[in-house]
Each structure stands twice: as C-alpha cells, then as structure tokens.
C-alpha cells in the first residue's frame, strides 16, 4: 500500500484489491486463473465427480454380485471395473480432494492473500484433470487397466498383460503424483511462510497441522510410486527387466515399492480427515479442542510409523518370519497415536455442549465406523490371521471401514461444514441429516456382511460365485446396502444443487467457529482479507480482543503478500505474487502429450520435452511484473534492521 492508501476507505480499498487480485472476465479468465479459491473449488468438484464415477462402478459391481451366477457383467469388464474403481478412488478422488480442500482453505485459515506458488497450483489442477480424463477415455475405449489398483507383477508385466491397458494405469500414476507433489510443495510453503503475524507454529489450528503432516508424507511416499510405475512401464515398453525373474529381476521388488507408497497413502488420506474432525468438533461443542499438543504429536507419530508398516500388505509373499513379526508389532503400534486422537476428541465432546448439526453427526459417524475398521485392522496386523484372510472379502470390509469411515465420513462432514464458505449459501440441514443417516445405515449394510463373507471364504475380485457356496444372502444384503449408500450421496448432490445459488445466505461465521477463514465474508473476496489480520492466540476468533491490530502497508495495486518467519510468524519481508497466465494450462497440456505419447512411442519423451520446456520457460519469464524497484543497499539494511514483533504489539 502506498502511504496515501492508509487513509482510503474500506470501500475504495476493496475495489482496488478486487481489481488487483480478481480473475480476468470470461472463459479466458477461468483458463488463466491462479486464484487458490477458484482452483480449489474446481479441484473439489472435479475430484467429487471422480468419486461419483467410481461410485457408479461400485454399484455396477454390487449389481453383478447381487445373485449367484449373474450375467450382468462379464469377467473381463469386471476386472477393468474393479481396477478402475480402486484406482479412481485412491488416485483421483481421495488424495486429490484432501489436497483440493486444503488449497481452498489453508491460505484463509493462516490469514494470507494467496497460496504460495499460485501458478504451480493451477498446473497441479490441470495435470490432475488431464490424467483423470485420459484414464476414463481409455476405459470407455475398452483399454481400461485390469490388473487391480496395485498392479502386481507379473500379472501387470509385459508377459501377462499385453496391450496398452496397464500402460495407461502406470501413466495415470505419473499424472497424479506430479499433481500431488506440487500441491504438497505449495501447502508446506504456505503454512511455514505465509501465516498472519502472531500465528506462531504452536497456534496453528490442528487442521493446518494435519495438512502439513500430509504434505510431508506426500514428499516421501509419492516418489516411490513414481519410481515403481516408471520401472513398470519401462519393463513393458522398452524391455527392461526390473520385475522379470528370468533375467535377474524380482516381482517382490514391485510389492515393496508399491506398498512403501501404498501404506503411507492411507495416512495421506486419513490424516487430513482427522484434521476435519479436529476442526468440526470444537465448533459444535463450543469449546477449544482438548489436548492440542497430544493431537499434534499423534499426527506426527502416525506419519512416522505409517512408513514402517508396508510389509503387512505382503504377509502372503513368503518373507522371513522375523521380519513379519516386526511389521506385526509396528502395525499394532500405530493404534497408539490413533487412540490418543480419539480420546482427545471424546474428551472435547464430553466437556462441551454438543449441537447436533450435520457436520457433527458425520464426525460421530466417523468414530463408530473408523473404530470398527481399526479393530479389524488390529486383527489383520497379526500375520498368522492375515494369512488366512488375505485376499478375502474380510480385507475388503476392513479397508472400506477404514477409508469410508476414516476419510469419506469426515469429508462429508467437511463439505457440509465449509459449504457456506465455498458458496456463500447454507445447505439444508434436514437434507443433510437425511444424507447422513442414509449413508451411515447404507454403509454398514453394505460392508458389515463382507466381514462374514470373508470369514466363510469368499475371495475378493471374483466376478461371480455359485449358489452352493452359500454366499448369496449376504451378497444381496450388501447390494441393498450399496444402493442405500448411493441414495445418501444422491441426496447430498440434490442438496448441493438446490442450495448452491438459492440457499439461505451465509453470514461471515454461521457456525460461530474460531478459525480465521470465518473472519471474512462467505464466499471470501478474491484477496481473502481486506487487511491481513494478526493473531493473539489459538482459537483465534474466540480469544481475539476487540481492537486486535491489523496489518497495513501492503500495496493493494500489485499482488503483494506478507511473508512471515517460520516459527514465530513475525513479519519478515513482502513478496510479489504472479499475475494470471495461460502457461500453466499449456505446460500441463504439453506434459499430457508427453506422458500419453510415451505409451505409444518411447521417443515421445524426447520430442515431448521440447514443448514442455518452452511452456515452462514462458511461464517463468518475468514479463510485465510491476516489481517495486529498490536500491540494493537499502534492501540489505532492511533485512538486518527491521524487526517487527507482532506478538508484542498485540500484547
């Protein structure tokens, strides 16, 4: 802000900030947008669409299994459907939607104007979208992957899976992993460097901690799957032998690489979901969260232990018994931090005054379903038992309890909770409750019988079964449950469309919550906050004094953002963020060309890298930036001398 703007009225300031931070008008504006809320909403809707597609595939499978010897879907299509269901749910829905919500919310919760690296954020969205489109086009053209979502070799190798099906699967991994990694980078930088003055690291909401932990897990998990899927596609396309035992390769290497990613993946999904619960519960019981430090430490230790469990997916692979016992112990250990979190939430509710609104109901549903999934997890952690139940419906029941209970229920809670912030309108509370009960009852009807089916021997991934197995009744029950669950999701979608534009107008803080995203209008303006706020304590809006100072001196005619210190969030310097641009979209398009081209011709990697390089350089080129030019000497002096302590000012 130039000095004279200090005297500007709020209205004039609003107009100027809107001009600086707003998207350009029209279609061009939406293609070039780098605003984290525009991208975030797009990201959420896209990931939710993939959830719906994968859900439809699940319903098709349930219809096929509703009665013995059904001829609704053939074996080949069934293989593609269960592979697409798992792949889509894990890679195109669960991880992306957790990141998408964080992309929208984190900059608001930490009190800044934008996510760090906004152009990279746009790129992360586009590359995710194109990857998803690619795999679904392949599926529709009958070249959908069919070797299961973990694509075990040799089944997924060149010998047993000729054709292009598994190649598309391997490249989808490349798309989603690039997207996840860039978004993780943005989130970590935003959380560490863009927080409002006074929001020291020990004051950030537990939800923000959960996103931070998730982003770090992405850093260590995603590169492994990138390496694995690259090795697989090299084996398939240029005849390397990483997984070919005839030439010194080893299929077990694939299992190790996949699950070293695949197990942390579960926590990448689950940890942000616990963050939702930690955000929702205090709001609806009207008290600060119990055991802040314990909760944060639980998140971090869950992340650490989460990297030491992968072998429990491989108990049937014939590894040394000593090793298996070690991983049994490690797996049992992760119950401890999860238990600590659950007791903290119970204590919060116990000592609060609960208000049973939809988001809170979903959190309670999460407790019930997730704890059931946790219990079967403890059972499966024991390798002798796992050997019996491996590849049966018991495992299917277990991980749906964990993933739907641990991630989808909190997610629906979160969607109901933040809907007013996303759209400016309230969802219907009664339809929300209908959604919850349909989903809760439908889910348990669909998946509880699978425990029993697994115990009596039904293997997973069979496209049909015979009447004499005695599995018919429970399968029919599961199908009915699946339909009820689908109805629940349908009610949510109806609720969304009814209230998206016409619902009751939402106030700034309709739930009376404590975090900063509720300190700006619903939906927030393009620049998030008229003045960057300062923070006097945890549960910011509940403890904030009336005259809490705000930050001034940030220019409103260019995209200036205040950068603060990593630990104490004292003002440090001012950065200038980039303008909207088409280049991230073009970079994503050319990368898409490279990735898809390489499936058909390895040279595409060479030729394809040229447009990718050109678009990245054009993106980076500092054209038309209106940077404030300062003499270097003054800059250095400032770096040494300027010490502003927001906390002291606030005190």
């Amino acid at each position, binding site marked *: 802000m130039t000095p004279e703007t200090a005297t500007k009225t709020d209205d004039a300031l609003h107009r100027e900030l809107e001009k600086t931070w707003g998207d350009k008008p029209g279609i061009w504006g939406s293609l070039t947008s780098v605003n984290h809320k525009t991208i975030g909403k797009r990201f959420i809707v896209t990931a939710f669409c993939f959830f719906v597609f994968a859900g439809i595939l699940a319903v098709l499978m349930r219809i096929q299994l509703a009665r013995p010897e059904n001829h609704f879907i053939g074996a080949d299509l069934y293989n593609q459907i269960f592979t697409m269901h798992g792949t889509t749910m894990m890679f195109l829905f669960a991880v992306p939607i957790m990141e998408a919500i964080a992309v929208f919310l984190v900059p608001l919760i930490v009190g800044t104007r934008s996510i760090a690296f906004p152009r990279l954020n746009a790129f992360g969205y586009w590359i995710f979208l194109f990857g998803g489109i690619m795999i679904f086009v392949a599926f529709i053209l009958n070249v959908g992957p069919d070797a299961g979502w973990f694509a075990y070799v040799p089944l997924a190798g060149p010998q047993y899976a000729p054709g292009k099906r598994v190649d598309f699967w391997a490249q989808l991994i490349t798309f989603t992993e690039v997207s996840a990694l860039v978004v993780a*980078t943005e989130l970590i930088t935003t959380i560490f460097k863009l927080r409002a003055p006074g929001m020291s690291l020990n004051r950030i909401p537990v939800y923000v901690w959960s996103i931070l932990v998730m982003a770090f897990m992405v*850093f260590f998990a995603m590169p492994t799957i990138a390496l694995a899927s690259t090795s697989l596609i090299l084996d398939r396309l240029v005849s390397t032998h*990483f997984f070919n035992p005839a030439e010194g390769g080893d299929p077990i290497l694939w299992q190790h690489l996949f699950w070293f990613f695949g197990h942390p993946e579960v926590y990448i999904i689950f940890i942000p979901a616990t963050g939702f619960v930690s955000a929702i519960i205090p709001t609806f019981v009207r008290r600060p969260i119990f055991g802040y430090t314990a909760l944060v430490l639980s998140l971090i230790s869950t992340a650490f232990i989460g990297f030491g469990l992968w072998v429990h997916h491989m108990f049937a692979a014939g590894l040394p018994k000593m090793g298996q016992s070690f991983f049994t112990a490690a797996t049992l250990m992760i119950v401890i931090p999860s238990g600590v979190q659950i007791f903290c939430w119970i204590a919060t509710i116990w000592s609060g005054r609960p208000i049973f609104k939809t988001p809170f109901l979903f959190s309670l549903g999460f407790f019930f379903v997730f704890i059931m999934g946790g219990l079967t997890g403890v059972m499966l952690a024991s390798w002798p038992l796992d050997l019996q139940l491996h590849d049966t419906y018991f495992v299917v029941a277990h991980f749906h309890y964990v993933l739907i209970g641990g991630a989808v229920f909190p997610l629906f809670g979160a969607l109901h909770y933040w809907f007013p912030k996303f759209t400016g309108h309230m969802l219907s509370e009664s339809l929300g409750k209908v959604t919850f009960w349909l989903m809760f009852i439908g889910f348990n009807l669909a998946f509880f019988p699978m425990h029993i089916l697994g115990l009596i021997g039904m293997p997973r991934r069979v496209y049909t079964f015979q009447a004499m197995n005695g599995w018919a009744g429970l399968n029919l029950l599961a199908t009915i449950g699946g339909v009820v669950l689908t109805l629940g999701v349908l009610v949510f979608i109806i609720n969304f469309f009814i209230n998206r534009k016409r619902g009751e107008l939402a106030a700034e803080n309709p739930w009376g919550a404590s975090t900063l995203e509720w300190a700006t209008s619903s939906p927030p303006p393009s620049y998030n906050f008229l003045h960057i706020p300062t923070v006097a304590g945890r549960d910011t809006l509940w403890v904030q004094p009336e005259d809490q100072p*705000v*930050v001034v*001196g940030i220019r409103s005619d260019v995209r200036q953002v*205040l950068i603060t210190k990593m630990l104490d969030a004292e003002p440090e310097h001012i*950065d200038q963020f980039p303008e909207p641009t088409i280049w991230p979209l073009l970079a994503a398009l050319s990368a898409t060309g490279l990735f898809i081209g390489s499936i058909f011709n390895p040279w595409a990697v060479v030729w394809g890298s040229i447009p990718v390089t050109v678009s990245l350089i054009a993106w980076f080129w500092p054209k038309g930036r209106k940077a404030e030019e300062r003499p270097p000497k003054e800059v250095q002096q*400032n770096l040494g001398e300027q010490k502003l302590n927001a906390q002291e000012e606030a005190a």
Partner: protein
Amino acid sequence: MTPRRTIDVSRLPTYAFGHHALTWWATWSMILMEGTMLVILLISYFFLRTAVPEWPPAHTLPPNLFWGTLNTAIILASVFPNQLAKKAAESLDVKGVRLWMIVTLLFGVAFAVVRIFEFKNLNCHWQQNAYGSIVWFNMGFHTAHVLTDMVDTVVLIVLMFVGPIEGPRFVDVSENSIYWNFVVVIWLLIYSVIYLAPRFL
C-alpha cells in the same frame, strides 16, 4: 468508529535470500522428493543385487572407470564456480553472477559431453538383464537432472543479460546454485554405487 490499531509493514524488504525466500522452500521440496526417489532407486539396486548369485552377472564387466571418474572430477570442480555464482547473487553483483554462472554452465556442458562416453562404456544394456536395467535407470535419472538444471541455468543467464534485473532474480540464481549442488551430491552417490560398489563391495 475509533481508528484500528495497525502494524505497518511497508518498510519491509521486497525479497530475501536463503530460508526466508519462498523459492528456497520450493527448491528444498524438490530436493526432498528427488532425493527420496534416488534413495529408493539405490535401495532397489542392492535389492536386485541380493536376488542373483553374481553381480554384475557373468561375462559382464563393471562400467569402465575412466570416463566416470573423469566426470566425477569435472562435476566436483564445478562446485567452485557454482558457489561463486551463489555468493555473487547474494551480494547482488550482476557481473559476478553473469561470469560464474557461465563458467558453471561450461562445466555442465563438459560433463554432458563426457556423459556420452560414459554411456558408451557402461558395458551393459538395459535389455540384457535387471543389472543393466538398474544401471541405465540410475544414469538416466542423473542425466535428466543435469539437463534440467542446465536449461534452468541458461534461462537465468539470459535473464541476467536482458533484464529486467530485479531482486527476486538474484534469489533465483542462489536457489539454482543450491539445486546444482544437489545434482553434484546425487552424482557422488550414483558414482559410488554404479562404478565402485561392483568392484569393491
């Protein structure tokens, strides 16, 4: 309405070096993820090695030492101009930045040329066996990093000549140097594994 209490930040600098800068966090994010990938790659190398009785497999020589060692010397030498470029950037010295980035780039070019001879002297092919596959994967992994950082360096050199010369550009140069150091460090690891481990381990 009483005037609000405010904190004025208008006098703060508009860029900063090191861990104050956002790009530093992006660079280290990149290093973390690429480093993880390398660690897993090297673990895979030794994993495959345990699965076979002979390593390298019978009738296969380890890669010829000469070209790999020469390249190790070249890339180690490049650390010096690279550090000088970083220092020049942090003291906002345009001429120093231009000079030392170009010198670093020349070392990179020399490295890339010698890399061609390295590939010719690996004594294996990726289609032969898993040993050949993992050796080529390691070499390909590193070469990709060398090439991307060289493109980055070229772009920054051009910007340092054509301008506009702004504070954030110097930060970019400094971050680029950090990334080149990473490329050097991962080469030392890959060199030890590909060239030395089959001989001495």
